[in-house]
């Protein structure tokens, strides 16, 4: 089969199975407990279920609506994870001395 390298084959951000396992994990007693322990409320899990359905629709029927909905949901998740103002500036490169050999001095406890 000749492969057309110009064609971008899109696929769901995660394998569909992952949405299902996340949904089940979210609803588990253990996770509900942890969520209450952290946020004082129950987690909302329905989105994972929806994402799973949309993923299947995308995979099996190439549904553009399902694809759009799933991508929107995931972009939302990414935005939620970034929803804070960083206290520090991120580096462009790792620290120069990370790999440098140790000198004779013993390091102090920090």
């Amino acid at each position: 089969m000749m492969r057309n390298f110009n064609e971008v084959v899109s696929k769901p951000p995660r394998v569909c199975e992952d949405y299902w396992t996340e949904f089940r994990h979210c609803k588990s007693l253990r996770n509900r407990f942890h969520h209450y322990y952290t946020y004082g409320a129950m987690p909302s899990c329905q989105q994972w279920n929806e994402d799973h359905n949309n993923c299947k629709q995308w995979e099996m029927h190439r549904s553009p609506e399902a694809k759009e909905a799933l991508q929107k949901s995931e972009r939302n998740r990414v935005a939620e994870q970034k929803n804070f103002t960083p206290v520090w500036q991120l580096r462009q490169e790792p620290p120069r001395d990370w790999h440098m050999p140790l000198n004779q001095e013993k390091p102090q406890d920090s």
Partner: protein
Amino acid sequence: MRTFPNYTMDQTKQEEECGGLCALGPYAKLLLGAMKNSGCKVFKERHFSCEDCSGTVSGGFDAASSQIVLCQNNIHQQSHMNRVVTHELIHSFDHCRAHVDWFNNLRHLACSEIRAANLSGDCSFINEVSRLNFGLKEHHQECVRGRALRSILAVRKISREEAEKIVDEVFDSCFNDHAPFGRIPHSKEDAKFAYRDYMNKDRYYANL
């Protein structure tokens, strides 16, 4: 006294990736992968130091030498060691990916301590109960605040009030910074899910 796992003749590729540190669990595995990705590959011999420490300190991160110090006289269980390593790896990760001014900027120090307490499992319900801290609703946050405060006061000569003020200032930002986990891992299972996401991130970001 816990020691690092030894290399064996038939190392798996995963072990190679972790530099022999995989046995420290899924939290450490993810952090080691993230650090390698950020240009700070961790080498057991170079970046870890086992020492006898004063008091009850379990470990520390020494930015001056880029080393994680493990207090061998104060760590007696594998689970404790795993948690200390995770905690210190979070500091190392912050050092690697951000301009953290450990020595002069208390807000930076507080932020990394909040993150380490939040993401390492330090504040799990079970750990808190074992410390006789019985709390449930939103207790995790209370624990994170308290432990960050303790850590700051252990290394800086400032008043409790001043330390509390700094923790308050940066808490919202730093409590919500879950890098590299993408979530607060409350259990090994959470950490495994987070690790799965991390290994999938190229596909993930390419298909948003």
